[in-house]
């Protein structure tokens, strides 16, 4: 079933992508044999055929995560997005301790050791990058210290 749904989505993408290619403005000067739209149109035809085949001859489903597993995965995604959002504000060490700590904990480590590993990892990578590799990472709140 999921093959059919994905096939349908990809078919929609192929059509939209092909239509998009038709809308490109004609480039400056005379039109050439192969313009900016030719290759995309070829691709949209190829993807269209593949997605039709996928809808007609779908493989058996692998089963999608439901319930708790799905919630865990969404939590992880939120952690990753939040990690990015706070990286520059709070600085690398603090945000890494929080993000990696939560990840380790959610994946099954004990709370204390999870945050300890995350903190040590963050500090080591921060020192390594800023002083050995000379690729500065944001200090954030720790800047004053």
């Amino acid at each position, binding site marked *: 079933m999921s093959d059919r749904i994905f096939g349908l989505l990809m078919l929609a993408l192929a059509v939209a992508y092909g239509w998009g290619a038709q809308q*490109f403005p004609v480039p400056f000067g005379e039109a*050439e044999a192969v313009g900016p739209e030719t290759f995309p149109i070829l691709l949209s035809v190829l993807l269209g055929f*593949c997605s039709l085949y996928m809808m007609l001859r779908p493989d058996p489903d692998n089963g999608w995560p439901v319930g708790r597993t799905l919630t865990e995965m969404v939590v992880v995604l939120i952690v990753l997005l939040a*990690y990015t959002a706070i*990286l520059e504000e709070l600085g690398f060490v603090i945000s890494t301790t929080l993000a*990696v700590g939560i990840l*380790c904990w959610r994946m099954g480590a004990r709370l204390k050791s*999870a945050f300890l590993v995350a903190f040590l990892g963050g500090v080591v990578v921060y020192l390594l*990058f800023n002083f050995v590799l000379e690729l500065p990472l944001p200090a954030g709140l720790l800047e004053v210290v």
Partner: protein
Amino acid sequence: MDTLHYLLQGFAVALEPTNLMFALMGAFLGTLIGALPGLGPANGVAILIPLAFSLGLPPETALIMLTSVYAGAMYGGRISSILLNIPGDEPAMMTCLDGYPMAQKGKAAEALAISAIASCLGSFIATIGLILLAPVLAKVALSFGPAEYFALFVLAFATLGGITGKNPVKTLMAASIGLMIATVGIDLSTGVQRYTFNVLELYEGIDFIIAIVGLFAISELLVFIEHRAGKGHEIIHMNPLKLSWADIRNILPTTFRGGIIGFISGVLPGAGASLGSFISYTLEKKVVGDKGAFGTGDPRGVAAPEAGNNGAANGALVPMLTLGVPGSGTTAVLLAMLISLNITPGPMMFTQHADVVWGVIAALLIGNVLLLLLNIPLVGIFVRLLSVPPYFLLPIVTMVAFVGIYSISHSLFDLYFMIAFGVIGYVLRKLDIPLVPVILGLLLGPEMEKNLRHAMTISDGDWSILWSSGLSIGLWAVAALGLILPMVVGPILRRRMKKNEA
């Protein structure tokens, strides 16, 4: 004679102290990556690329380090096959068959040492093959016109799924998705904006390094969470090593055959390391016959697949270096490194960047010796790594991925993009759509379109130029075979590999 001269030059490059240091570091990191559970070679090389890039290493140094990582990962993969009966990566599957029984009989140290020797010799043989074959192939490739290149790219996609691949249509689908992503941005030859939706960050196109790291590393994290891989393995105690010359001599012929077979299957499109180790194992079983104790811990059963998969790994570098067309996931990632260093892979590389190419080849030879030296005395350290629980490992790997991408451009936008690619990668994996063609599409897209353009300009808009020369017809025919064969031969081969496993 020319070759020898270039090779000596290569050694001069590879033996520079900095390069040697990076080779050693790469070899160590590579073995580590290969040994760690759930971190395949392509994945490992992928998360190191941003670092090599933002450190601003010279091209030959960066490439030497990453090829050492690549070679090292092949060594590392065998450790968990032998000790835990869990292959570290796909090609190491065959090593389980005799490696694990040997370990159970209390000969784990011998199995590890033998596999290290076989790996070293196997890739040594294949590197010699590479030295002999690559310049010849590069010369042939010089006669390729744009039409032949276009056909060659099609061939690369068609054979990427491999003969043992499940569904060639899904490979093609993945390839077209990758190629489509590659068209985003300003079209270089006409200046027309394509699919940018007026977002400034998209004008320059989507950086394939971000896509690769997202697709591999972030999706791996999601897959692990779904399967709850749980705790690490208990620490395994090793027996003291007792290896005599007779033991080594015993595996030499096997290793030799395995290396050659591996090399051939690495060079050929659509074969790859898994098939290389499978064929060398089954052939060896036939050659030795009833005298061997295959499947119950025969040292030759460890040597054959290891020589085979290391041979194949080096063989896979031949099409990547000479034609710019990688045949495996890891070589695709290495290609990404080359492109991001502004080196156009392909036959011209042998003349324009001779120091890079030959430096890398020499580094392969040196790297192998380093790996052997690293792997026999230090194997205990790598063994201990097997007990690192994935719940610490994967978050740390994720952090390294974040740091790497961030250090390239200091852009948070790129990090969000990487997370998005991680989700896409997870969905594709769940649907059994392979990720490597997506990446190859991203990498080869611009070149493919350029060659199509040139061909059509030459022919003044006549599409038949694409199949007008004997060479291009040949390439199209192999491409077609690459799509049809998996449907015919694939099920039979897969069944046989399964039967061997059981």
